[in-house]
Structures are given as structure tokens and as C-alpha cells.
């Protein structure tokens, strides 16, 4: 495998066995994340973005279970100064609560959560919680851990870190708490950081600060980031590569420029048409995607997007699930329209 891949997800399936029925939250997701880059995962609520993240960390809550697929993590460790050695680990094969998984979780792959208001335990100081992560994964004593925690707080732009470290979460604002979460996540110098809608719960000015902080730290530390969001603006600002998810499936995977200037999948095209443009001068209505996201208990057969798709081909889209089709190098799309055996490309491009 190439040296620059850090994570390869292959046909991942996570199902929730609820009393109301089976929910295929993630149903055949494949993608690769390149080392040192920011990979965005974009999609509507409930499309399986967060569950994919939980699956990578092996913290899918019950009744959810990984029922298929592989998550290959290219683990790098220095070999006594003789350069780096990369070793592949299939995360789905490790016991979720076992020692090796716990070493990776938080130590090499860490996560920032959506709700900074509730992602810190209210009864411990933020220092306690940062030091908890540090002492778990590094051989340091208490005062060294505290030093490191203060250093991390300073790194994420916390004012007066020597004092703030002894604050309780309720004494901090949402933006400050998210900085603490980022400090915890980065405290063990992880090689992969998963950020699950890190700015969704924050107001716009705070959002800009947090994104700027993450981008700065990413460039400084070279951490790979998996950025989950439903906000295309965040994607445009932050990401190198993007995957678009719809109902538990990846529908398109490409680099960020291609996503915005040459999207192929009808869902991606529709998503882009539904965002307001500041430069458009003429009065123009936003074009929402028609229909609603189907009930998770009754996902349509074939391509899951066909009931809402403008280019629906009866008898094909609702029967057969499309494969990944490589339309250009590094640009994959799951849509029958781009099947080389069908010559309907022109039709799609016209309608854009």
C-alpha cells in the first residue's frame, strides 16, 4: 500500500438492531484518508457520518454493531531511530475494549465532539480531564502531566492557562470548552484527529476561530483530520478531499475543488444548489432537494437517492445499486449515470 495512506475504510457496515427494526446506519462505506491531509465527510443529518467516526474508534453505542467491512489503520512507529515503520492494523478485528484498541483510541486516533457543552464531565476540572488523557497514554508523572496540560491549553489559545486549568467546565463558554476538547484530543499527538461537527453548536464568530485554530494546528503538527460536517462552507475552507454521504453510503469521493466546480453525483449537485450564493445579483430562489430523507427503517432499494433524484432512470436506479465508478483520477462516484456502458453523461451536464 502507498506510504501516504493513513486510514482505509473498506465496505464498512454498521447496523443498529433496535426494537422498531433494523437500521442500516452505515451500509457499505469505503474511502481512504491520506496522511497529513484534511478529509471532509459531508452529508445530511442521519446519513451515518457520526456512526462512521464512532466505528473507527470502536465506540459505536449499543444496539449498534459493526457487521461487516474493514477499517485498516496504517500505524506508524519509529523503529529505534532507524526511520518509521508502518504496520497495518484492522481496527474492526481488535476487541473494542482490549488494550491495543485503547492504546490507539485517544493515543493515536482521537476525537472532538459536536456538543462542547456536554462533552466534558461537569464534576471534574478541565485540567483533570486533560491530564487523564495524558497519563493514560504517556509515561509522565503528575506534575509533568500538568505542565503538558497547561502547554496544550496555551496551544489551543486558552487565556491564562495556568489558572484556567483548575476551572470546572461550567465556568467556561462553549467556544472555550471546545478548545479544551481539542486540547484533550491533541494532548497525545495523535496521528489522526476525528472532528465530529466541531463547530455546529457554536456561534459563527466562534466557529471561525475554532476552524482557524484547527487549521493552524493541523499545519503545525501535521495531524491528519477527518472533519465531519453538514456545512459545505466549512468543507470549502478546511478540506483537501471530500466524501459525500447519503443514507449510510458514500456517493462521491473527490478533491475539494472538483467537488465544488465539477460535482458528478446528482445528490452532490443538488446539495450545492441548495446553498445561498452571496455573489448572485439576480433574485433567485434557493433550490431545495425535493422530497425528504427516507425513513431509516425503510431505505429504498437500489440507489438510495432515486426517489429524490432528477435523473432517475426507472427500472435501473430503483433495482440495482450502483458501484463505485472512477470518472477521473481520484474522483469516484456511485451513480448509474456514469456507468461507461451507459452514455447519458451529456444529459446530466446539460441540466446543471
Amino acid at each position, binding site marked *: 500500500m502507498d506510504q501516504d495512506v493513513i486510514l482505509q475504510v473498506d465496505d464498512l457496515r454498521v447496523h443498529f438492531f433496535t426494537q422498531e427494526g433494523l437500521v442500516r446506519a452505515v451500509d457499505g462505506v469505503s474511502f481512504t484518508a491520506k496522511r497529513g491531509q484534511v478529509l471532509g465527510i459531508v452529508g445530511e443529518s442521519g446519513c451515518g457520518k457520526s456512526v462512521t467516526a464512532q466505528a473507527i474508534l470502536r465506540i459505536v453505542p449499543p444496539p449498534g454493531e459493526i457487521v461487516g467491512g474493514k477499517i485498516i489503520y496504517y500505524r506508524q512507529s519509529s523503529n529505534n531511530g532507524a526511520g518509521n515503520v508502518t504496520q497495518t492494523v484492522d481496527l474492526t478485528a481488535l476487541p473494542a475494549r482490549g488494550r491495543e484498541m485503547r492504546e490507539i*483510541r*485517544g493515543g493515536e486516533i482521537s476525537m472532538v465532539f459536536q*456538543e462542547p457543552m*456536554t462533552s466534558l*464531565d461537569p*464534576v471534574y476540572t478541565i485540567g483533570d480531564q486533560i491530564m487523564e488523557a495524558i497519563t*493514560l497514554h504517556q509515561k509522565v508523572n503528575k506534575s509533568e502531566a500538568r505542565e503538558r496540560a497547561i502547554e496544550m491549553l496555551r496551544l489551543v489559545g486558552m487565556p491564562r492557562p495556568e489558572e484556567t486549568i483548575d476551572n470546572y467546565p461550567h465556568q467556561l463558554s462553549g467556544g472555550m470548552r471546545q478548545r479544551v476538547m481539542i486540547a484533550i484530543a491533541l494532548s497525545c499527538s495523535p496521528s489522526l484527529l476525528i472532528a465530529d461537527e466541531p463547530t455546529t453548536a457554536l456561534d459563527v464568530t466562534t466557529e471561525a476561530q475554532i476552524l482557524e485554530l484547527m487549521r493552524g494546528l493541523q499545519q503545525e503538527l501535521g495531524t491528519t483530520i477527518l472533519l465531519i460536517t453538514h456545512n459545505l462552507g466549512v468543507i470549502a475552507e478546511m478540506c483537501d478531499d471530500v466524501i459525500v454521504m447519503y443514507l449510510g453510503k458514500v456517493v462521491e469521493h473527490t478533491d475539494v475543488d472538483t467537488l465544488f466546480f465539477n460535482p458528478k453525483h446528482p445528490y452532490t449537485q443538488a446539495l450545492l444548489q441548495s446553498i445561498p450564493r452571496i455573489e448572485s445579483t439576480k433574485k433567485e430562489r434557493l433550490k431545495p432537494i425535493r422530497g425528504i430523507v427516507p425513513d431509516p427503517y425503510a431505505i429504498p432499494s437500489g440507489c438510495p437517492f432515486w426517489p429524490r433524484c432528477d435523473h432517475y432512470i426507472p427500472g435501473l436506479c430503483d433495482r440495482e445499486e450502483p458501484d463505485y465508478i472512477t470518472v477521473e483520477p481520484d474522483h469516484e462516484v456511485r451513480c448509474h449515470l456514469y456507468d461507461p456502458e451507459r452514455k447519458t453523461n451529456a444529459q446530466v451536464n446539460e441540466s446543471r
Partner: protein
Amino acid sequence: MVAYLIRRFLYMITTLIFVSIIGFVIINLPPGSYLDVYRAQRQMQGTSTAKEEIEALKRRYALDQPVYVQYLKWISGFVRGDFGRSFQYNREVSDLIWERLGYTAIISFSTLLFTWIVAIPIGIYSATHQYKLGDHIFTFIGLAGLSIPNFMLALVLMVVAQRAFGQSVGGLFSREFKDAPWTLAKFIDFLKHLWVPIVVVGTSGTAGLIRMMRGNLLDILNMQYIQAARARGLPESKVIVKHAVRNAIHPLIMLLGMSLPGIISGSTVVAIVLSLPTTGPLYFNALRQQDMFLAGTFLLFLSVMLIIGNFLADLLLAWIDPRIRLE
């Protein structure tokens, strides 16, 4: 923090004063003065009351003076440990209560301890193994324990112990030890009797507590900070003990404060069924016989325990929850 404590303490004192006034009013509610009742009681027993005795009582309770003087007299006596006289037993109320309070406290404390030691781990187990077999079994036992009335369980246990083990289970001692001085044998006999009320009273308390602990913990386990703790790589046992249980125990501490009066009132019905020498049956009889100083004393005692319990619970909460401590 200090301001919080002082404020709480002042609230407590104010409440106590009001409660004592209400308690005094209740004591004086039955028709006729204390003297009339006393005289009538005496007559029914066939003895007449000497004039000097009446005068002495009048002076003791300031009965010829306004009500607020009577109240002040009573409450200042109360503070000094003079609770008045029970005419049903014709003894000082303080003697009656002190001789039973020890056993009551032992039984109640052991029951409380039993309840918590059994219920908290089971609640944690049930929540962390939700809908698994163990959870279902404990839920079933818990619901059964909640729905069986205590006196019923007491009767059943008495029959079983008597028939199957030939053990006498009424009271706290076997007949031969009842008036004997404390020896190791008497202590062992005491322990043999103690488990019955503990189990009887404990089952329903345990059942309720299990359900509460389970429910609270399930709520907490869904919180994001639990996931965040897991995502840090913390072992599951530490996630549960350090982060989840500490937050879930919160509402139970309030409950602990409210169960303090129960230490005196005991479980009256069970105590009557098992003929335990505790304060519960005494209180019950005092109410039935309109033994006003005895009943009033109990009333005030129960309120004091409740208020102190709440105060202690507030202290505990402030100790475990920085959001309360620092506001």
C-alpha cells in the same frame, strides 16, 4: 462556599423554629387542657390526683399563663432534654424515647447500609447490562420487592423461620436473653434477630433504589462526556466508576437526606408485626391515645431529623458537585 453554608444553616434554623411552633399547636389541639386529660386519665385508673401535684404540673408547663409563655417554656425544656410527661405510661417522655432510640437507630442504620450496599452495585450492573439476562432478573426481583407489602413479607419470613429453622424471630432477643446483661452470647442472639427486620425493610428500599440507580446511570451513560471519556482510551470500568456513577449518584443523595427521619420512626408497621422494641410502635400508640407530649416530641424529632438530613444532603451535594459549590 462559606456563604452557601451559612445561608443553608440559617434556613435550617428558621425552619426549625416554625416547625416547633406548629408542633406545639398540634400538641394543644386535642380538646381540654393537659391537666383535664391528666385528671381524667387518673380517675379512669381509679386514683385521684392530689392538689399539690396539679399545682406542680401547672407550674411546670406554665398552664396559668398565656400560650406563648407555655410555648417558650416547652421549647426551652425541649432544648434541655425535658420533653414533658407521657400520661399513658406516666413516665418522662425522654426516658421512654431514649430507651428505645438505641435499638431503633441500630436497626435503621443497618437497614440503610444494607439497602445502599446491595442496591448501588446491582443498579450499576443492571444499567451496564441493560436488557441482558441479569438485568431482567434483577428487574423482576426489584419489582417484586417493591410490590410486596413489608408486613406481608415480615409475616412470611416469621413463618418460614419458625417452621424451617425453629428460630423465634419476633422481637430483638430470645426470651432467655431479654433481661440478661450484655454478653457475647446475647450479642450473637441479637444479630440472629436483627437480620429479619433488615431484610424485610431493606427489600422494598433496595428495590426502589435499584430502579433509581439504574435509570440515572442509563441517562448518564448516554451523555456525550461518557463517550468522550471512552474516546480518550479510558478503560470501561474507569469510565463507569469515575465519570458515570459519580454523576448518577446525585439524585440519590437527596434521597438519603430524606430517609434520615426514618431512622426514628423506623418502619412502624413492620416493628409492630415483629414486636420490635423500637420507637415506631411507641409513636403509633401515642397518636392513638392522644398522648400529646409523647406525640409532639416525636413530631418535632422527625421534623428535626428531616431538616438535618436535608442540610447534610446539601453539604454532600456541594462536596461532589462543583456547580453547586461555586455558584
